[in-house]
C-alpha cells in the first residue's frame, strides 16, 4: 500500500475524534480500500452528513462535501447524476443515516444509484453527547435512556435489503483487513452499495454501559460477530456478554449482491 498520508490532509490534523474511537480505524481501512482500487484521487468525491463519522471527510484528501444532517445520500445523488465519471461515496453514521436521514438512504438504495454508502454504526449519538440512536439496543444506557433503552433498534442491513440495495455488507472495525476488502468490493459494485461498519464509542456507549475503553470495545465487538460469538458462547469458555445490551450474533460479510439496472437520472440515452 502507498503511504496512507497520500490520502490525508495532514494540515487539517489533529482530528476531532476521541482517543480510542474506532472511527480512526475505519478511516484508515477506507483509505486502504481506495489504495487497493487505485482510483484517481481527483475523481473521488466523499460526501458526509453530520456527526462524528461525518467529520472524517475533513481529513481525507479528495473532493469532500460535509453536508447537512442525514442528507448525504441526496447530495451524493445530485453529484453522481451530474458527474457520472466521479466515484461518489458517502460516510454517514447510525443517527445521521438511519434517523434523520432514513428517507434519503432508502430512496438512494431503491433507485440503485451507483454510490457507496459506508454507515459507521457506534450505536449512539456521539457528537451531541451520547443520546440514544435508532441503533441503540434495547436495554442499553444512553444520556436520553438513563434507565435503559425501551425502543427496538434497526437492523441497518435488513433495512437496506428491504429497500432494494443491490450490495449490502456488514463488517467490523475490529477486523480492518476484511473491512477494506469489503469496501473495495462495494465501490467496484455497479449500483448502490451499502456497508454497515460496526464501530464504537468508548467515550459514551462504552462508559455508560460499562463495556470499557477502546480496546475493550473492539474485543467486545469481535465477540458479537455471529461467526465468533455463537460458537464461543456455546463452548462457554469465554465470558458471556450481557444479553440486555447486545444482540448476540451479528452476521458479517456480504449479505446481498445482485446486478440490477443502475439509475442515472432521466437523460438522453445516446452519448452527446
Amino acid at each position, binding site marked *: 500500500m502507498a503511504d496512507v498520508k497520500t490520502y490525508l490532509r495532514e494540515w487539517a490534523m489533529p482530528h476531532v475524534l476521541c482517543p480510542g474511537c474506532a472511527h480512526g480505524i475505519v478511516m484508515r481501512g477506507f483509505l486502504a480500500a481506495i489504495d487497493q482500487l487505485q482510483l484517481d484521487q481527483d475523481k473521488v468525491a466523499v460526501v458526509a452528513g453530520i456527526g462524528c463519522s461525518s467529520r472524517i471527510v475533513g481529513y481525507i484528501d479528495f473532493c469532500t462535501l*460535509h453536508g*447537512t444532517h442525514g*442528507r448525504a445520500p441526496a447530495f451524493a445523488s445530485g453529484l453522481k447524476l*451530474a*458527474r457520472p465519471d466521479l466515484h461518489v461515496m458517502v460516510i454517514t453514521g447510525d443517527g445521521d443515516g438511519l434517523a434523520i436521514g432514513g428517507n434519503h438512504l432508502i430512496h438512494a438504495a431503491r433507485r440503485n444509484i451507483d454510490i457507496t454508502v459506508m454507515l459507521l454504526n457506534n450505536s449512539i449519538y456521539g457528537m451531541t453527547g451520547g443520546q440514544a440512536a435508532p441503533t441503540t439496543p434495547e436495554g442499553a444506557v444512553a444520556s436520553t435512556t438513563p434507565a435503559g433503552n425501551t425502543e427496538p433498534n434497526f437492523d441497518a442491513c435488513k433495512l437496506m435489503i428491504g429497500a432494494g440495495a443491490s450490495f449490502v455488507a456488514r463488517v467490523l472495525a475490529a477486523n480492518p483487513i476484511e473491512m477494506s476488502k469489503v469496501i473495495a468490493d462495494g465501490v467496484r459494485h455497479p449500483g448502490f452499495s451499502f456497508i454497515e461498519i460496526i464501530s464504537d464509542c468508548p467515550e459514551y456507549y462504552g462508559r455508560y454501559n460499562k463495556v470499557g475503553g477502546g480496546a475493550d470495545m473492539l474485543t467486545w465487538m469481535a465477540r458479537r460477530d455471529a461467526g465468533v460469538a455463537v460458537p464461543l458462547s456455546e463452548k462457554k469458555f469465554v465470558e458471556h456478554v450481557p444479553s440486555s445490551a447486545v444482540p448476540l450474533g451479528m452476521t458479517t460479510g456480504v449479505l446481498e449482491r445482485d446486478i440490477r439496472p443502475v439509475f442515472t437520472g432521466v437523460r*438522453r440515452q445516446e452519448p452527446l
Partner: protein
Amino acid sequence: MSEARLVQGNEACARGALAAGCTFYGGYPITPSSEIAEHMVRLLPDAGGVFVQMEDEIASLAAVIGASLAGSKAMTATSGPGFSLMQEHIGFATMAEVPCVVVDVMRGGPSTGLPTSPSQGDVMQARWGTHGDHPAIVLAPSSVGEVFDLTVRAFNLAERFRTPVILIYDEVIGHTRESVRLPDQVEIIDRVRPAPDSVDFRPKAAGPNGVPPLPAFGDGHRFHVTGLSHDERGFPTDDGAVAGALLSRIHSKVADHEDEISAAETFMLDDAEVAFFAYGIVGRSAREAVLRVREAGIKAGLIRPTTLWPFPGRQVAVAAKQVDKVIVAEMNLGQLIGEVERAAAGQAEVVGHLRADGEPITPSELVGAVTAAGGGN
C-alpha cells in the same frame, strides 16, 4: 425571437432555465409548481442535462447543490410547504456558497393552506426563512415573459455571486398563459473558476467582488465544502474572528452590489400624488388601476419591484418624497409593507391593501382603494 405563442408562466420558467444553461433539475411534485418539473423532464435530456425526482424537497435541494458542485447549473422548484423544507439547504448553499436557483410558486398558507390558490405569503420567508444571518437575493416577476427573463437573471446572479437565488411568484403568474415571444439568445454569466494549475488553491479566499472562484468536483482541485464556519481553506474553525469575517464577506458580496441587484419598475410616477407599491400579479392589477383612476383625474403611479430582496428601498425613498401616499397592495396580511414604511421614513403616508383569502387582488379593488383613500389627497 421565436414566434408568439401561448406560454404558461411555469413553462416560461423551465425555458428560461434552459436558456440560462441549466443542466440539472431535482424536484418533488407540489401544486402549483409541478408544471416546471414536467417541462424540465422533457426539455433537459435534449439539452444534455439530467432530471431527477427526489424523495422530498429537502433532498431536492441537496441534489441540486451536489450537482452544482459537480459544475452544473442546477435548480429546483416548489411551493410553500416544500419551500419550508428547503430552508435548511438554502442556508447550506448560502454558507458553502454554492450557486443554485430555487423557485417558489406561492399558494395560500400557512401549512397545506390553499394548494391551488395564489398568495404572496412567502416573501418574508424568502428573506429570513433559513436560520442565522445571511443575505438573500429574491426576484419577483409579474408576467409570463418576465418569468423567463428573471429565471435567466436568477441563474446569472447565482453564478456571479456564488449564492442561492430565489425566484418567487404567485400561483396566478405560474398558471397564466400569455402570448409571448421567447428570445433564442440570452446573456449568460458563468461562475468564475480557478486556473486549472493554481497551486495552494484556497476555495474560500475572496476573488473578484468578494466571490471566491469555484472549481467543479473532479476537475483537479481537491477541496472541502462544509456548512460549518470555515476558513479560507474551507476547513471548519471555531475561531470567532474567522467565522465573523466569513459571514461579513458573504453578507457584503450581496450588500455591496445592492444597487445593481435591486430593481423596480416605475409607471406614471413622475407627477403622481398616490403611488401603488405592488409586485407579482398585483403589480399587473395596480398598473391597470393606475390607468383607470387617471381617466378619473386622479394622479396615480406605480412602483413595481422585480427584486424583492435586497429590498429596493432607495427607489421607494425617492418616490415617497414625491407622493403623498403609498398604497402597498399585497396578497398577504402585511409583509413588505413594513419595508416600505421603513424606506418611506415618514415622507409619505403608507397604507396597506392586503388580502389573504386565495383570491387575487383585482384592478377594480385597487381603483376602489385609491378612491377610498381620497386619491392623492
